[in-house]
């Protein structure tokens, strides 16, 4: 899959980087080579076949220069702090680093490692490597310079930070490894939006993204990951959230594009009173495949988690949902909610959904549900009798299907961006 992967080892070692970081890369690479690309016999990949990804060969180094930077403007909004990465490399020229708010630190992740930012080693080695995380290992081995954001203690950042990952390789198939680390210090608050975008649908590439978020005591983060890649692209992404006491993570994922998309969001509730919201909307057409996996681990008492995953499928698109809630024996008074709703509009679409509740504490309130269905016939008829044509009526109902989900997004800037993105996805379908 990655061209010449066995011979890459040498180039991973960078003399200027600390020893531990080089070791981490080499460990990641050997782990990936060892586990390889998961097959459908792996229960975590039962409904997502990576055979097509496996067959293609991707380069990891990219020398292509982008000449049409003005194309970027479609993604940028002057109200936001825009941070632009092209093919995994940080573009200082196109990022708004000059007018950052006080107490908000933004740099490349590799720079932060080089400068030995506080706790950086601890954070990058927080999660033990497991057999089931081949793509995390791959990112760990080959990640580009990446982004590091730290919001200082008690700092409330008012402007939306928009990280734009643009993948636009030359003619060669290309593998991009975006890496993001976000640290929210105690009592801080911020809104961060990560977009994965492409210019058009002509390029074949593989984006393997890894974002780690650390939420310290009482921190609040409004976060969204949005993804609309080239229709020839593969996207596999992991977002891991670590939450300490009373922290609040308000997260959203919007999946609209790519040939094959897999999005994992994992949250560990490690401090009492923490709460996590992982909501998502996926909208796919043609023969697109989107697979959403979530995992929420309740380790301590009095935490809440909420998941609402909604998807609209057109044509022969395919969606997978797998949501795991684990409530450890100590995690009494847990409140956990999960719902996956699918609207099937195409005649060839297919959904596989698999919620999993694993409960080891007795004083808990956990509910989950899944629905798969079509537009309601009575609702359609009602709208028609008011003069609204079939297409307009079905779009109206589809937007209605989505609206309560968007209303759960608390931060106005995040919600606004999501509104315009989802509206575009309706126009496209």
């Amino acid at each position: 899959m990655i061209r010449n992967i066995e011979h890459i080892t040498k180039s991973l070692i960078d003399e200027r980087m600390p020893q531990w970081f080089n070791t981490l890369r080499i460990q990641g690479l050997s782990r990936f080579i060892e586990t390889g690309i998961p097959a459908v016999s792996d229960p975590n990949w039962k409904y997502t076949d990576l055979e097509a990804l496996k067959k293609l060969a991707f380069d990891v180094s990219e020398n292509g220069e982008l000449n049409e930077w003005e194309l970027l403007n479609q993604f940028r909004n002057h109200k936001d702090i825009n941070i632009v990465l092209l093919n995994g490399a940080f573009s200082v020229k196109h990022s708004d680093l000059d007018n950052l708010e006080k107490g908000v630190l933004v740099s490349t992740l590799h720079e932060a490692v080089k400068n030995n930012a506080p706790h950086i080693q601890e954070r990058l080695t927080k999660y033990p490597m497991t057999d089931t995380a081949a793509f995390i290992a791959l990112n760990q081995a080959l990640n580009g310079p990446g982004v590091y954001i730290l919001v200082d203690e008690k700092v409330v950042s008012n402007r939306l930070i928009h990280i734009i990952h643009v993948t636009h390789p030359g003619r060669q198939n290309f593998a991009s490894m975006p890496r993001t680390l976000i640290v929210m210090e105690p009592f801080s608050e911020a809104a961060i939006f990560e977009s994965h975008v492409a210019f058009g649908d002509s390029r074949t590439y593989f984006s393997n993204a890894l974002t780690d978020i650390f939420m310290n005591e009482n921190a609040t983060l409004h976060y969204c990951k949005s993804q609309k890649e080239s229709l020839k692209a593969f996207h596999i992404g992991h977002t891991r959230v670590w939450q300490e006491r009373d922290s609040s993570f308000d997260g959203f994922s919007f999946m609209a594009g790519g040939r094959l998309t897999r999005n994992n969001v994992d949250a560990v509730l490690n401090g009492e009173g923490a709460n996590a919201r992982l909501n998502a909307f996926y909208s796919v057409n043609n023969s697109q495949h989107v697979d959403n996996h979530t995992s929420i681990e309740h380790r301590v008492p009095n935490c809440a988690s909420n998941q609402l995953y909604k998807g609209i499928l057109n044509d022969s698109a395919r969606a997978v949902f797998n949501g795991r809630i684990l409530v450890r024996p100590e995690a009494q008074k847990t409140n956990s909610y999960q719902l996956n709703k699918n609207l099937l509009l195409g005649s060839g679409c297919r959904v596989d959904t698999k919620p999993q509740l694993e409960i080891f504490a007795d004083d808990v309130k956990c509910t989950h549900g899944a629905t798969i269905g079509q537009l309601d016939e009575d609702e359609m008829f009602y709208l028609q009798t008011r003069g609204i044509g079939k297409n307009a009526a079905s779009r109206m109902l589809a937007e209605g299907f989505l609206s309560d989900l968007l209303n759960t997004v608390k931060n106005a800037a995040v919600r606004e961006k999501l509104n315009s993105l989802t509206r575009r996805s309706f126009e496209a379908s």
Partner: protein
Amino acid sequence: MSRNKIEKLQNEQTTENNTLSGRDYKYGFVTEIETDRIPEGLNEDVVSLISEKKNEPSWMRDWRLKAYRHWQTMKEPHWPNFQYSPIDYNAISYYNAPKKTTGKPKTMDEVDPELIKTFDRLGIPLTEKKRLAGVAVDAVFDSVSVGTTHQSELAKLGIIFCPISEAIQKHPKLVQKYLGSVVPYGDNFFAALNSAVFSDGSFCYIPKGVHSPLELSTYFRINAAASGQFERTLIIAEDDSYVSYLEGCTAPTRDENQLHAAVVELIAMNDAEIKYSTVQNWYSGDREGKGGIYNFVTKRGKCEGVNSKISWTQVEAGAAITWKYPGCILKGDNSVGEFYSVALTNHRMAADTGTRMIHIGKNTRSTIISKGISSDESNNNYRGMVKIMPSAFRARNYSQCDSMLVGNKCSANTFPTIEVNNNSATVEHEASTSRINADQIFYLVSRGLDTEGAVSLIINGFCKDVFKELPMEFAVEAVKLLEMKLEGSVG
């Protein structure tokens, strides 16, 4: 009374209850009886010997041997969410028959009085005088059926209700046509084992247009030590017929684990309906998890005809481990599959149970209602699969899986899988996990109930959607069983 006070009150009651060990398993006795036993171990000779002892035709023996050879190529599945000590398949005796039953008795009067007494003690009177009205019973003791009541009455209607070993002799064409047609011998590890060594079980054939006026039932009793029971049941309902079938099971209290690996196949033709109910109360081991039955069961129904219906109702309250997913293959257009389940685990029991609904025909419908109750240090899992095939236009499924936790050392897990391959399908799944709510208990206690009475009221409320599917006598029995099991666990 403040919440703290209520909790304190409950804690006090918990400590009190902890000193009780729950009522003893009243079916734990052993019947002393001389048996015809094949020594422990499994090989082709043993399979042939079982076939020979049952005087089977060669096609049956060949089928068993084919199954045995296939079984040898298979691995014991370890995906269920529990651990258990390894099963030594060569330490099990695969055939145990009370000696006096060889050469099957013609009437109940000829059955060994010791066996009649045993079934009497289990609450299943077999003799003409005492037998239950309205229920025909086939009593299976270890590897053989010892007697079947009401046979002649049923025969008048053309209903065949007899031990499967008898059906192989008397109705070979029917058996040959349908045995393995829903659960092929290679279906899974335990089905293959069962196909090789199955001993007894019931055969029911309901002819066209007949609604069985009696409930048909089989009572399974494991008695012999170091033995396994390999029940095989086959029910065929022809066009426009109806039958309600009940199954009950118990075993003696023993320190070692015993294996029960059953296969049940149901076939419903056009407009036919089969209602299959189980109250499973195998010995489940003691408080520390010692002993108990390993219950590995493959149950599946096939709605072959249009408008047919198969309904599974189960109360799983026993066995050390239960691995069981009664399912329906909804092949006929407009056919209906139902699954109603209460699974209760206490002590250190583990249950991994649920259902599979495979929608193939148009307008097929399925309903799944599952209630799991776990207490003490037990582990209770719902595992379900709803699969809508591309041909199943306008298929519908509704599933509801609720779990209740009693005490804080147990666990409850839910693993539903939904696969939809036709966009006209409507599938809804809901699940919840909760504990017996302190406010609910207090409300009832303040109306004069004691805590245990309050809890049993709540449990019965929790399970009522399932109990109402059981035949009356069974429902009463099931409620008593749950109350007995939960005694000492609640607080």
